[in-house]
Structure formats: structure tokens, C-alpha cells
């Protein structure tokens, strides 16, 4: 089983925190869709796996009219084997989702919506330079929940001046709508974003890690007490509602990435497409996929397994490490993780032979993972 990710590199406007690849000019939308279709076709030779998830991400896929999305889904069905009931997710912004759009998305086969809410407060939305208002968010959720059961929403925490109470209220609003899946991210200041430059120039304060950590604790407490499972660092789902597409990334499964800047992984090689719409389109007009490839060494794959594993509820299985890598990797992992087990940031279950981050260690997993890495 494998997933297909399709990157739709257009946005109405740039969110102040975002460093993903997108363009705010929609002129090339149609030619880009053609290029995506071309890439879907060209990739099939080298990717002979049954597809069980399709994911439209971005950018803002909800900017595309339903018929273009339908066309792309069609292209996938035409060239690949797809399981009978695939998970088909579309990322959408509240301002694009009126009732008509929602019903047409449903009719073309989208069965999961991931809605970029971020916050139910206009002050936060303004800071993030989102294109929608808090009122639009509420309205959108009212309609979306009528037609879709499988909905995920994004929330951002650790935003400057966001109080504990406001954060609790944001979570409460989601709970009130009974949304079954939540992806929630700490506001991260990426270099070369509008936020980074505003912080540098002193217009707004930097984000505060202690605040983010407190928000994170509240988030876990509120959601887990309401039946959500904290299955990945930034992802919470009711049973049966985990993101199948994204879970595949964390479990090291194969995936195909279509579109500018999209990444693909076949179990050995990772490739990434050029992150420029014009060059991407040009290249595909000449039947060439504009991608670079790297072959992962065993150490690279081990490092990725550690890095993603520690983020999930499934942890890192020592048995899996021994089977997929070698006994030496297993021994190395045991030695390296000892001090973290001793200081309570990691835990090891001796029966299942699984290492996981403890609640105390969860928010520190990058540094821990790095320490467990194997580098020459």
C-alpha cells in the first residue's frame, strides 16, 4: 500500500509564518494541472504499488475548482491500482468552502477535509495573515460537518499574546463541533518569512518556548480526556479517524509526491521536485520530471525511523530495528537511549521491546532523536 500526495502550489495570500512552496498568482493554474497530470502518468513506470490514500495539499488545494480535482483523481485511477475505499483528503481554507463547494467536493470523491482554521480569534488570524475571519471559520464548520464526517482541522498555538484561556477556548470550540481529528502546531518562526522579519525588526516579540510548552500540555490534557488519541506529536484523532496518508510518512512507508516541491520515497530513494512552478511546468511539457534524488543509506533510514518513531504513539520497535537494520543498530540504540530512559524522557517496554517518548520527553524529541542518530 502506498500514498499519493499532490501539491497545489497556489494561495490567495501568504500566511506570515509559512515557508512552503506556493505562488499567489493563479495565472498558471490550468497549465499546472496539466503538468500534474503529466507527472502522474510519467511516474507510474517506477512506482508499482497499490494506492490507498490520496492527499491534496498545498498551498491551498481548495482554490482549484472541483472539476480540476476530479480530473486529477481520475488520472490517478487511470494509471495506478487504487484500493476500493481509498482515503482522499483535500486541504481547504474556510474562505473557499461554501455549501456548494463542499457538496461538489463530496460528489467527486473527496472523503476527508483538512481545514485550515488555525484560530477562532481574529487577532491571531491577523497576525498570521490568514485570508479568513473567525466568523467564516465557524460558518464553514457548520456546513462542513453537515456533509463530512471525516474532518480534520489545523490549530496553531504558542502565538504571541495568546493566553491560556484563549487557547482553551479554541480547543473547546473544536470539541463543540465534535471534529474527529485535530492537527495542532506550535507557531514556528521559519527564516525568510514575514513573521521572522517582523520579529527581527522588533515589531512583535519572538515566540516563547515556555508558552508553547504550556499550550501543548493543555492541548494533550483537553483532547485525551475527551477520547482523542495523541498518535503523533502534532496529531490527535478519535479511533478510526487517524490520517492514513500522514501516518504512512511516520511509519516509513512508500509515497509518491506530485507537483512542485513534492517529495517521493520508494523505500530506498527520496526524490524532490523543483520548487518553481514555471520551471516545473516547462520541464513536464518536455516529458521530464524535474527532480533530484538521493539514495538513503542504512544509517539515513535508521535515523529517519528514530526521528519519526519517537514522534508517534507507536514508538521505535527494537525488533523492527534489528530486522530492518542490524543487531549493531539495535545495540547502539539501546546504549544511546539509556541516559534518556534514566532521566525519564524516554521509556522502554521490555515485553514489546518498544522505546517511546514519555509525556515529559515529547516536546524535546528533536534533540533526543539527534542524540540517538547514527552518524560517521
Amino acid at each position, binding site marked *: 500500500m502506498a500514498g499519493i*500526495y499532490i501539491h497545489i502550489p497556489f494561495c490567495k495570500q501568504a500566511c506570515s509564518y509559512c515557508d512552503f512552496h506556493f505562488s499567489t498568482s493563479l495565472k498558471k493554474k490550468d497549465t499546472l494541472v496539466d503538468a500534474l497530470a503529466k507527472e502522474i502518468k510519467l511516474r507510474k513506470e517506477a512506482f508499482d504499488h497499490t494506492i490507498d490514500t490520496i492527499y491534496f495539499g498545498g498551498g491551498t488545494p481548495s482554490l482549484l475548482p472541483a472539476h480540476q480535482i476530479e480530473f486529477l483523481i481520475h488520472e490517478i485511477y487511470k494509471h495506478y491500482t487504487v484500493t476500493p475505499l481509498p482515503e482522499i483528503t483535500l486541504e481547504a481554507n474556510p474562505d473557499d468552502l461554501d455549501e456548494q463547494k463542499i457538496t461538489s467536493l463530496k460528489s467527486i470523491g473527496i472523503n476527508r477535509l483538512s481545514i485550515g482554521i488555525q484560530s477562532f480569534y481574529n487577532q491571531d488570524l491577523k497576525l498570521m495573515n490568514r485570508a479568513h475571519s473567525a466568523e467564516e471559520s465557524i460558518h464553514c464548520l457548520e456546513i462542513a460537518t453537515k456533509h463530512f464526517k471525516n474532518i480534520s482541522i489545523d490549530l496553531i498555538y*504558542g502565538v504571541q499574546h495568546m493566553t491560556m484561556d484563549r487557547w482553551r477556548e479554541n480547543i473547546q470550540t473544536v470539541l463543540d463541533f465534535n471534529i474527529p481529528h485535530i492537527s495542532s*502546531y*506550535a507557531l*514556528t518562526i521559519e527564516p525568510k518569512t514575514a513573521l521572522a522579519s517582523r520579529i527581527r525588526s522588533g515589531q512583535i516579540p519572538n515566540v516563547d*518556548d*515556555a508558552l*508553547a*510548552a504550556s499550550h*501543548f500540555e493543555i492541548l494533550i490534557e483537553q483532547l485525551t480526556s475527551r477520547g482523542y488519541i495523541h498518535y503523533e*506529536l*502534532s496529531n490527535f484523532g478519535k479511533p478510526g479517524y487517524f490520517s492514513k496518508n*500522514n501516518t504512512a*510518512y*511516520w511509519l516509513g512507508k512508500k*509515497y509518491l*509526491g506530485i507537483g512542485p*516541491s*513534492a*517529495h*517521493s*520515497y520508494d523505500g530506498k530513494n*527520496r526524490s*524532490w521536485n523543483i520548487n518553481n512552478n514555471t520551471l516545473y511546468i516547462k520541464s513536464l511539457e518536455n516529458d521530464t520530471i524535474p527532480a533530484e534524488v*538521493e539514495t538513503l543509506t542504512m544509517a*539515513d533510514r535508521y*535515523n*529517519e525511523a528514530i*526521528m*519519526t518513531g519517537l*514522534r508517534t504513539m507507536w514508538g521505535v520497535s527494537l525488533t523492527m530495528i534489528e530486522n530492518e537494520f542490524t543487531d549493531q543498530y539495535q545495540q547502539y540504540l539501546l546504549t544511546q537511549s539509556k*541516559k534518556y530512559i534514566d*532521566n525519564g*524522557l524516554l521509556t522502554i517496554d521490555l515485553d514489546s521491546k518498544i522505546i517511546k517518548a514519555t509525556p515529559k520527553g*515529547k*516536546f*524535546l*524529541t*528533536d*534533540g*533526543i*532523536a*539527534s*542524540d540517538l*542518530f547514527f*552518524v560517521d
Partner: protein
Amino acid sequence: MKHIRNFCIIAHIDHGKSTLADRLLDFTGTVTERQKQDQLLDSMDLERERGITIKSHAIQMEYVHQGETYVLNLIDTPGHVDFSYEVSRSIAACEGALLVVDAAQSIQAQTISNLYLALENDLQIIPVLNKVDLPSANPEEVTDDIVDLLGCDPEEVIPASAKTGIGIQEILEAIIDRVPAPKGNVDEPLQALIFDSVYNPFRGVETYFRVINGEIKKGQKIKFLATGKTYFADEVGTLKLTQFPKQSIKSGDVGYLITGIKDAREVKVGDTITDAANPTQNMIEGFENVKPMVFAGIYPVDTEDYEELRGAMEKLQLNDASLVFAPESSAALGFGFRCGFLGMLHLEIIQERLEREFDMTVITTVPNVSYQAYTKKNPEEIIVVNNPSDLPDPSKLDRVEEPFIKASIITKADYVGPVMSLCIEKRGVITNQTYLTPERVELHFDMPLAEIVFDFYDRLKTVSKGYASFDYSPVGLRASKLVKVDILINANSVDALSALVHADNAYDIGKKMVEKLRELIPRQQFDIPIQAAIGAKIISRETVKALRKDVTAKCYGGDISRKRKLLEKQKKGKKRMRQVGNVEIPQQAFMAVLKLND
């Protein structure tokens, strides 16, 4: 012999010594156009970049004056206080000196101390007023300064510009007319002064000498008096731009000698060369074994590179006999070497040469001077303390003595106040104050050498806005109240961060060290207390707060490789850190204490 002139150039850094030397070589036709390279005498890259001459050399020129051909030996001198002994030996090899003074900046402290050295050696001084073409030049006033200093006639001062060539001919004529020809007797037993040596990886050590009496011949069996070793003179010759082998070098002249010596330590500057069969009875006066003044630990960044570092240090020592080192080990840094240097500049040079010539990045620990400690049990027995860990326990300590220097500072009258405050803060005691001119003051202080090791030069420059020059000479040991300040990181004492400081400064230095370390030690998953202590007494404390968040929010398809590479890089960086207890300490933390005031 009456056609030989031996001279050196005394000048402050940047006053144009190297440019003047170039011009002299040009004018006498010693250098062809093709060979021209700015600042010819500074052959090490490092010297050229720093604009200072670290190792002295010699070069021979020929000049026809009034129909007669003269041989002019220019003996170059190093231009930094760390190398004052080498300067004194170069001066001892000459009969005359060009005193080069910048027409805009006038006389500086180091120029004066070297001038005094020259006068003590009865050198004929030819004052040269350089850079007269500069718009900022102040020739009348600076000429007055020179006349005051030397008690000479203003007419004797030669206005020049090494850059444009003004005055070069006058200088050459003055060398011939004013500098006396060497005296000496070619029939006496060989007596030659070693004033420098250079290590050549292919030919061994090249020894530079000045023959006082007798002659040195190719193939002769010779003896170095201080070391007592004998050699065969495989090759002798004169130094032009390249070496010119000759059958012999006679009294009064300057030359080089190759004997196949592989270790620079066998060639001691100031030593006397004589004939092995018919030795001179008179060793040339003034020989000293050069003693290191500043000590620091040098450790490989990667503990595995210890043997490689040893190899590099041994090679460096082959051409820098003033470098001494002995193995030591540190709980924090592993195996390394305790090294002795002539001064802080020398330390920096060694560090840079390790990096450039051997690609070895090293960790240098807090430098200290060499103390002498005495215990109560045995109050007469000297315990040499070159390393903080050598200091006996305070309860057993009877007394400690530390090296003192006589410091000479020349500055503008406006800055006397701030300069004095700095020197007093540095435990200096003023011994003399002389107005060289109404505007320029020379101050003399007795100061502990240890105080100029830490951030003295930089602060002197700051308080005097650059208008202060500094020189020093050692004046022996004096009693001192010395304590060892230890640094504890997460309750573990870090030996490599211990420092020997005067009791009065201990609190201040301890505080600055922990503050600096708090900035440099990255936050980890737990709070890290950093403490400074004297014995069991904590004198300062800071805390590196625990990380609250160390995780990327998003980790999907494309984020995975990017994130992995970032964390791999982080891991590599961590590998270069030093583990003390469960705390990782970056290398620059060990060096931070060198720059406490940044």
C-alpha cells in the same frame, strides 16, 4: 672589512620598516623586478598578513659609493615584545641602526626600548623620518621629538618616504658614512654570534650568524659553545634573495650555515660558533636560554587526533625553538599538551600555524604565567606552577611568587589618567613618569606579568583610543596572593576551566566566567548550574535553564529529509562537544575565558 656595514632597522609596527627594507633592496639592485613581492623579508604568509615580522632574517646588498663597492648586511628584527630577546641578539650583530619613525605618529614605546638596546650595544643610530609624504605628517614636531630623544643634530635626521623612494639614497650613504666598519681579527680563532635560525624541511636548520673574529669555512669542524655540540659546516654562504654558497665567511661579515641539524632546539639564538679544534676562549656575552612566559593547555578538538597533534607540535618545535610542550591530560579534554610560549602573540601564532600548516583545530585552555609555590612543610623547595592543578592545596601552601615586569607605556598626555587607572587596576605600581615632549608621556610601571596576559592590550588600546604603545621586560619574582578559581558545571569541577588568579580579582573573574559560560553552553533537557568556586566556597553562580521545546511541529513527506539532515548536523556538532558529567560543553566555552570583556 672596511667595506662592510652591518645594520638593523628599529621601528614600531606600521612605521614602515618592511617597506623601507624593500626599497633598499630595490635601490641597490638586490632584487630584480620579477622577484619583487611586497615586504620581501617577511617570508611566512602569516607574517605578511599580520604585517609584522615574526622571525628575523638577514640580507646582503652591494652599493657603490664614491667609486668603492660596499657590502651592506641588513639584519631584520622581529617587531613584537614577545620576541625581545631575539631583537637584542640581532642588535648585537650590528654596528649601526636605522631608527625609523613615522612622521605622523612619532616615537612609540617599543621603538624606545629597542633604541636603548641599540645604544647599550654602542650602535650608531641613523634617525629616519618616514612617511614625510603623508598629508598627516608632522615632520617638524617629530624631528624635534627625535632630536630630544637622541640628543642629535636636526640635520642628522633623514626625511624619507619608503613608499615613494624619497631619501633612500641619503639613507644608503649615511649607512656607509656614519656606521663604523666592523672590527675584528680574521687571524684569531673563530668567534661568531648566532642571531637567528630558520628551519628548512629539506636542508635542516639554517643558522644565521655574524662573524666577530676569525673565519668560518666550508667543511670546517665547528662547535656551538652553549650546547657544546660539534658539527661540520656542510655549507656556508651569504644571503641575498637566495642563498649564495661561499668557501668562507670572514670576520665582520654575516652569513648562513647549514650543518644538517634537524632540531631547531640545538641552535640557540645568542650562542657562539667557534672552531672545534681551536676554540675561542671567549663566549659572546649576552646569551640566555629563552624561557617561556605564558603557559596554556593545547588539546585536539577531536580526542582521536592526539597523536596527530603531537606530530604537529614536534614539527613546529623544529623551527620554533621557543615553543616548549609536555603531555598533560584533563578530565574534560582528554590528552593534550601543556605548552610554554614567549607571550600571548606567540600563543596565537602557534594556534594559527597549527591550523594553517597542519589543519589542526585545537582547544586552548586559560593561559597562565609560571608561578613558584612553596609549602609550609618545605618552605625552601620551589614548586614550579605552570598549570592550575600544580598549585598545592591552600592549607599546605606557604607562599607563592609570581613574575613581575617593568612596563613602559608611551601615550598622549590626554590619556595619562585612563592609562594609569588601567595599570593600577592591573595591580601596577607606577615607578616613573617622563614627559618626552609636552604632548607625549612615558610611564613606567612594575606590574605582574599575569595581568597583561588577560585582556591588557585590547583595553590599553581602548582607553588610549589607540594612542599608547607598550613594551615590557621581566624583573623577577615577587610574593603574590594567588588562588585557584574552579568552575563547576552541574556540580562537576571542570579542570580545563580552572584559572590561577590574584585573590583580589577572583570574585570578579569568577563572576565573568560563569556569565560567559551561561551564554555559551546551549540549553539542554535539564537546568545546568554553573558555579565558580575557590576551594569549597562558591563565589558565583548562574543557571542555563532547561529547554522547554525542542521539536519541529510539522514532519510530513518533504520535511523528513530536511529535518533528518538538520538533526544529523546537530549530532555531528555534539560529537565535537566535550562531555562533562551529563553536560555537553562546546569548545568555544573553553576559550571563552580568554575574552571575558567581549
